[in-house]
């Protein structure tokens, strides 16, 4: 299935549109999407820091998702690099 991934923070620098669409197996979990995004980053993003992705969380529009949670059935999934407001 196709999953739209929205990008924030440092990941925006890699994609002017701040989003990528990735293919993952049906029933995929957050961990699967993390692996797919890492592969995409290695292939398409010069200067991609895989360590940053390892420290990033994934979220729906309303909550942070656990690594073993199933991906939401609808809506984009958001990648949240380490935060630092204020």
């Amino acid at each position: 299935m196709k999953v739209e991934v929205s990008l924030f923070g440092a990941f925006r620098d890699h994609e002017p549109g701040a989003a990528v669409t990735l293919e993952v197996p049906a029933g995929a979990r957050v961990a699967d999407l993390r692996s797919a995004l890492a592969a995409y980053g290695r292939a398409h993003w010069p200067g991609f820091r895989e360590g940053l992705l390892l420290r990033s969380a994934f979220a729906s529009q309303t909550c942070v998702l656990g690594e073993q949670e199933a991906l939401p059935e609808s809506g984009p999934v958001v990648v949240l690099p380490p935060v630092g407001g204020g």
Partner: protein
Amino acid sequence: MGDFLRRIVDVEHERIDPAAAMEFVADPAFGGFAMFVGRVREQNQGRAVTGVSYDVFEQLALVGFDDIMRRAQEQFGSRLKIYLAHARGRLGIGDVAVVVAVGTPHRDEAFRACRQVIEAVKHGSPIWKQEHYVDGSSEWSEGCSLCESHERDRGPESRHDGHAHG
């Protein structure tokens, strides 16, 4: 949540107003008020800064702000008002990036609630800061991993295995 107000302020159209924050938390029953104002400073870790850009995932940030204020109410009682605003967009030196204002009957709860709210915002809200330097370069600030805090909040029994977080 009539006693709480939270907003993301797009600085292209508006600026955060600390006076409005204090006005919101004013109440004749309250004698204690505390406010934190975060402004952009001209230097960070030895580098001269010309400005800062904030990126915000607004939908999740507002959900989080609601939770932060609800937790403050649980801890410090229902007799408090909180105003919380964070900027999005590019700011210059001295511009206001964040304001937390708290009103309570007495000063102790006001100080403590204000501190609790700003720390929670800084460490747990989906907000990112990119610093711009005098030499023309820019860098995203290192921050707190929500991945790690999420797993911590859920407890050790729910932690995933086999995945390192840097």
